[in-house]
């Protein structure tokens, strides 16, 4: 009997993991000793970090999309279907089309999604750039924007915790370059009493806010939006009038986690921070945004976790152990405007220290945006 690896979610984590394992075990797969199956509810992959550039018309939607099949090594079996239920006892996954898939090892890599329903009025009154239709709509709104008050309001948790900061720094420079910054106010409204949950990052952001004249509204937990009066309200009782509202609402995990009894608060999957095992199961793992781990929900985290887990799965599928442990490694580029960038690099034990932004790091991020595809294939 072949050993079966099933991965749910054809995003950053799912693709890197399935390609890495399948490449290492291509001989075993050809001999019928191992199978690697990737189950994804979308047959196209969207490079989400590119969404940051869409509102400013710096990347086109078509540049961000590739067919999943083109990104997979040949010995991975791709199934375009949605997991609707996971049954750890019988080691089976049910799909929307009515199929039942079996596994020896299961990896949950289902990502995270915006919760647009939780804040009344948000869908009608706000813009966002965290999905493709939202980013395109914001591009249209910005192309018409002549000045006024922009409020950027955030919920927690959200993926890529630096993207909203990058957005306001880019917005500031975009407005200066168009000569409309004087007619504009930018307010960054954050749920905590600083601009970021990581203190060193918050300190750096604050110094950039001061330089650029961006106002910080602290302890602002999104409560409701009044699209008619153009006001956004916080649970703490603050009301901000806006001309343009850009929201990054809190995210949630996929419904299949709760439907399978595998979810904690927020629909996240309870995952061990070092072994990546789910709950008490020895043969179920989770990577990327879907977990409840104390990491950033970032593509780099999904990538580093995939490398660790691939090492363990390659061993497990060929009769070995699982010695590799994830140490919280995270790496994030941060655009500090249109022409310079910095980065954060950290682990569970070492907090990040942002360095001074430079043009070289900006070009490095731009280059990465173009070679990301090779990363997914496990080439870079």
């Amino acid at each position, binding site marked *: 009997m072949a050993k079966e690896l099933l991965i749910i979610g054809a995003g950053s984590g799912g693709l890197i993991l399935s390609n890495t394992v399948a490449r290492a075990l291509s001989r075993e797969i050809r001999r019928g000793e191992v199978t690697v199956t990737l189950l994804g509810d979308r047959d196209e992959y969207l490079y989400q970090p590119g969404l940051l550039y869409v509102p400013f018309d710096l990347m086109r939607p078509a540049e961000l999309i590739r067919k999943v099949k083109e990104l997979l090594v040949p010995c991975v079996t791709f199934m375009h279907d949605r997991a609707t239920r996971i049954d750890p006892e019988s080691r089976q996954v049910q799909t929307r089309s009515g199929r039942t898939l079996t596994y020896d090892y299961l990896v949950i890599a289902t990502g995270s999604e915006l919760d647009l329903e939780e804040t009344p009025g948000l869908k009608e009154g706000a813009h966002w750039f965290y999905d493709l239709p939202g980013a395109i709509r914001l591009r249209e709104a910005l192309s018409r924007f002549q000045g006024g008050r922009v409020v950027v309001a955030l919920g*927690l948790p959200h993926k890529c915790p630096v993207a909203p900061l990058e957005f306001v720094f880019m917005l500031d420079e975009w407005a200066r370059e168009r000569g409309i910054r004087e007619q504009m106010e930018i307010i960054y409204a954050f749920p905590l*009493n600083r601009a970021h949950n990581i*203190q060193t990052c918050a300190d750096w952001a604050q110094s950039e806010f001061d330089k650029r004249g961006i106002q910080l509204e*602290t*302890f602002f*937990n999104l409560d409701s939006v009044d699209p008619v009066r153009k006001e956004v309200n916080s649970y703490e009782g603050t009301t901000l009038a806006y001309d343009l509202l850009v929201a990054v609402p809190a995210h949630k995990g996929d419904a299949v986690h709760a439907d399978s009894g595998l979810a904690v608060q927020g629909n996240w999957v309870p995952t061990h921070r070092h072994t990546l095992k789910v709950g008490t199961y020895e043969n179920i793992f989770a990577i990327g945004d879907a977990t409840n781990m*104390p990491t950033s929900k970032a593509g780099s985290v999904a990538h580093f976790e995939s490398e660790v887990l691939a090492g363990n799965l390659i061993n497990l599928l060929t009769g070995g152990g699982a010695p590799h442990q994830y140490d919280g490694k995270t790496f994030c580029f941060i655009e500090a405007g249109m022409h310079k960038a910095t980065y954060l690099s950290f682990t569970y034990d070492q907090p990040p220290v942002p360095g001074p932004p430079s043009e070289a790091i900006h070009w490095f991020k731009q280059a990465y945006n173009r070679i990301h595809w090779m990363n997914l294939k496990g080439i870079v």
Partner: protein
Amino acid sequence: MADKVVDARGSHCPGPMMELIRAIKAAAVGQTIALWTTEAGSKKDIPLWCQKAGQEFVGVVQMDGYEEIAVKKVK
């Protein structure tokens, strides 16, 4: 006595703060929520949040390996 305990021990920033806010939102006016936390920043941030949100900060009690922070929903 708290009406509800939110056990956020082991959870990192901003976990405890977000869990407390969620519990306060769900509570009835007059109820007290006790947050159990091991995250150092909670003790400093929660009184400030109470001030801004107009809720009553009841106090912090040092327990065995964690802190209990009590907040009363007054509006």
